[in-house]
């Protein structure tokens, strides 16, 4: 029993310990079945795809707009709110250092170390990087510089590509079972690293998970403006949900909040709005992405003897007087502030095309989920209060049909439901949709269209996508230009 999370009575994060019966089944079934399964997966996963330039499209007519691609650097995001108080400004260097810190395995100070035994990356900024620190995947996949760092012997899963987005894997079911899983199965282990001698565990069997159709991939969402999003009042989200009901009904749009089972407030971070606050998100990511145990998440991701190198938790409130006062809180709190205090992305200057595009965005119905703005209430950090935030999201989850469904329920978000992704900053975004399946923003729009099947209902976006495709060529292009201006 080297991997407690392979235990199918409870948690399962790795399938290195896949139960024997499954193995036998595969051996007996043989290659033809594998091929059949692969084909079936390919068909079901990619079926209702828009084929640009081909003669038939779903929905018809085919879109005519083209994606001009991401706006060039310099970044239209990153950097802190300019209105922070002096005592907040004074810790900007400390929180920036923390967000950029590369974590090694061994804890060498109250602020460093703790990586692994399993991890996806070794720093926040490696994945939250583009177009500036705090963002999302950069043009070159940074994991290729991380996975064998310091002697690690990891193999790179085939779904990661050098010039593709960072993808984090979740398993739909516990490997070899029909027991729902849904948790992240970290890509890498610390095995082989010079600072992890004696540790012997296996990477999860992603090949098998992929061929079993048991893999769901997620790319990193950007974090700009999250400190503003987290204080938007629940009642404003609900009031917005209950506005324009006639138009929404006409378009087939419903949507609902993902309420926290804890305090009953509306969760709002992550692809399924499954996290409530920047504090909880930061603590979660330290643990699930980097393997750094902290005061909120005190369990190593793998507790195999020989692989636990540090006292737990690996980052703690620092009680030592004399150390920089801004280091007093633990790492997750400092990364929390980094994310919480980042400016929202700045859109490009308006042009007549962009203005028209904004109108078409409304006309087609995009705006009924991608709500233009909310206003933050009075905030105890004054810099965050009374700000109109143009995030283009209603912070609700919506049915997106079989085409986007990833099979993973999270809280009150069903397996085909996703949070309306905030669109601010997509002018410089490189990959779209939860699994980064496309870098073409027109394709991303078309992928919102998906006809229901016996498992999932129609995508709530279907009518809006039809409306988009029916726009004149100019109006379509203006809408795309408007998006690329955000």
């Amino acid at each position, binding site marked *: 029993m080297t991997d407690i999370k392979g*235990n199918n009575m409870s*948690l399962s*994060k790795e399938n290195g310990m896949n139960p024997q019966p499954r193995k036998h089944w595969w051996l007996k079934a043989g290659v033809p079945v594998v091929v059949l399964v692969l084909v079936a997966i390919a068909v079901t996963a990619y079926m209702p795809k828009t084929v640009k330039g081909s003669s038939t499209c779903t929905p018809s007519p085919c879109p005519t707009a083209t994606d001009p691609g991401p706006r060039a650097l310099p970044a239209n995001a990153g950097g802190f709110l300019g209105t922070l108080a002096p005592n907040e400004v004074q*810790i900007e260097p400390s929180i920036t250092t923390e967000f950029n810190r590369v974590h090694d395995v061994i804890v060498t100070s109250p602020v460093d170390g703790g990586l692994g035994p399993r991890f996806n990356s070794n720093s926040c900024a490696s994945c939250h990087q583009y177009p500036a620190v705090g963002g999302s995947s950069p043009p070159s996949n940074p994991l290729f510089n991380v996975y064998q760092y310091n002697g690690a012997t990891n193999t790179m899963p085939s779904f990661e590509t050098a010039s593709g987005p960072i993808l984090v894997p979740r398993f739909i079911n516990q490997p070899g079972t029909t027991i729902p899983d849904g948790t992240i199965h970290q890509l890498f282990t610390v095995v082989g690293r010079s600072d992890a001698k004696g540790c012997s565990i296996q990477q999860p069997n992603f090949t098998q998970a992929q061929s079993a159709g048991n893999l769901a991939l997620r790319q990193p969402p950007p974090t700009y403006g999250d400190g503003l999003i987290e*204080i938007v009042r629940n009642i404003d989200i609900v009031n917005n949900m209950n506005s324009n009901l006639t138009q929404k009904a006409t378009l087939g749009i419903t949507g609902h909040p993902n309420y926290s089972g*804890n305090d*009953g407030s509306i969760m709002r971070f992550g692809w399924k709005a499954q996290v409530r606050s920047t504090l909880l998100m930061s603590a979660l990511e330290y643990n699930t992405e980097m393997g750094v145990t902290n005061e909120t998440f005190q*369990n190593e991701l793998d507790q195999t003897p020989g692989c636990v190198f540090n006292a737990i*938790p690996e980052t703690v409130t620092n009680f030592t007087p004399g150390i920089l006062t801004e280091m007093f809180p633990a790492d997750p709190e400092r990364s929390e502030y980094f994310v919480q205090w980042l400016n929202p992305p700045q859109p490009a200057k308006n042009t007549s095309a962009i203005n028209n595009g904004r109108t078409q965005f409304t006309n087609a119905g995009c705006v009924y989920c991608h709500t233009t703005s909310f206003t933050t209430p*009075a905030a105890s950090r004054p810099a965050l209060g009374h700000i109109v935030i143009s995030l283009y999201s209603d912070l609700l989850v919506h049915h997106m049909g079989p085409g986007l469904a990833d099979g993973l329920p999270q809280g009150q978000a069903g397996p085909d439901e996703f949070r309306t992704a905030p669109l601010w900053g997509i002018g410089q975004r490189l990959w779209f949709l939860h699994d980064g399946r496309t870098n073409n923003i027109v394709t991303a729009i078309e992928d919102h269209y998906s006809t229901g099947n016996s498992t999932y209902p129609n995508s709530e976006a279907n009518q809006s996508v039809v409306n988009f495709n029916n726009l004149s060529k100019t109006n379509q292009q203006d809408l795309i230009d408007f998006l690329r201006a955000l």
Partner: protein
Amino acid sequence: MQKIETASSIHSGSANAGSLRRRVVPLCISLGLLIAGSMAVLMTRPATVHGQSCPVSPCPTASDPGPRPLPAAAGTFYPTLNANQQAIENRLTSIFTEVNYVAGGPNVKTVGLGPRFNSNSCNSCHAYPANGGSSPPVNPLFGLYNVEGGTNVMPSFETTNGPVIVARFPLNSNGSPDGSVHQLFTISNRVDAPGCTQETQPDFTTQQANNNIIFRQVTPTYGAGLVELIQESAILANMNSNTTLKASLGITGHPNVDGDDGTIDRFGWKAQHKSLITFSGEAYTVEEGVSDEAFPSENDETYPSCLPPFPVAPGTNKTHGVPDDRNDTGEAPKLPVNFTGDLERFALYMRFLQPPTPQAPTTSTTNGLAQFNAVGCNLCHNPSFTTPNASIAALSNQTVNLYSDLLLHDMGPGLADGVSQGQATGDQFRSAPLWGIGQRINFLHDGRTANIVTAIEDHYSLGNGVYPNSEANAVIQNFNNLSSSNQQDLINFLRSL
């Protein structure tokens, strides 16, 4: 208050409930106590009755000696904390005992209470036998619900000598699952909430009449820092041990695995919290209405006049917004501990509290422990875990004698409260840690009894169409079959914890 004590004793199945139950329904109606009557009809399950016909025959013979008297055997910090940790103990205690007000004033240190709340400080409820514990003998809510000119009505289910109990509604008005806490009180009309008049208390009377209300009492927090450190591998290894014996007794149990991150949650009556940070973050906003950095929403946003910022007295800087409490970068140069928000400090406070100290063993309690194991109590109330190497040295490699497996178990219709939390279903509860119950006053999730023998008997419950048998049934049968002296020794052992 009389009607409530009647209802509660029916529900709890205390000593004379059987005869009461037969008499009470007509009695209630004749007295116009329709609520208590419907509670009795709808919620009463086979009650345990000593000395008469018992659901588990033979009836138990042991009696509860009652809680050990003070001084408290709990509530102190680890003497092994290092000097830096000890240096902040007083600060942590003061934040845990601080009373929150709505808005600032010249003498007000902490603000953010409401709009809805159950209490105004942590230690009002976590009070006995020492700070950090559970309900004290006198219900503290009576002393705080209308301070500052509040105009709340005390719900009838709170009694002056009963436990602090918090209300949840299993269902929403449209029949969909609710399960959330509905705070007892509001800040309407308080002098420190100028302009707030519109918040109204939930209609508990109607919810009670509709049998749509369940109660939870306060869990003690001693030793919680050790509990949060217990690694999942240890919890699972224990779950997978003695499986034959457990199966023969009908015991299964499973962890409450967090749906998002896959970790095992472990605090709260249904093990719905993973750590002291999330626990205190939630309690601050749910119990006191103080929004914080983990849960930065006010607990009712309906009326702008009841939301921050409130006007504050001249000369104070306590105007605020959401979250009501946050880390204070401004105070960092003065005193580093002030840098962290209250929720981190609450977490540190609980983390630094030692477990309760049991009494020195006697012949009786030693035999009681043996009987505890012999009848099978220990298969859920697992005597101990060990913490891993921990970064707080005082918590490192410690034996944690909590008497819990930190798993959820079906407890049958008798205890079921119909509220699902995470993977805990309507009749599942975490094996309550038994350390410290020697001085505990009220038992079970809803504090239905002060008698530890009744609490044991209430673990027995036959399944119905909705819920399966309690997993404790065979163990309770074993307990009742013990000789009189063995039974009493087991009870004495529990009261020595």
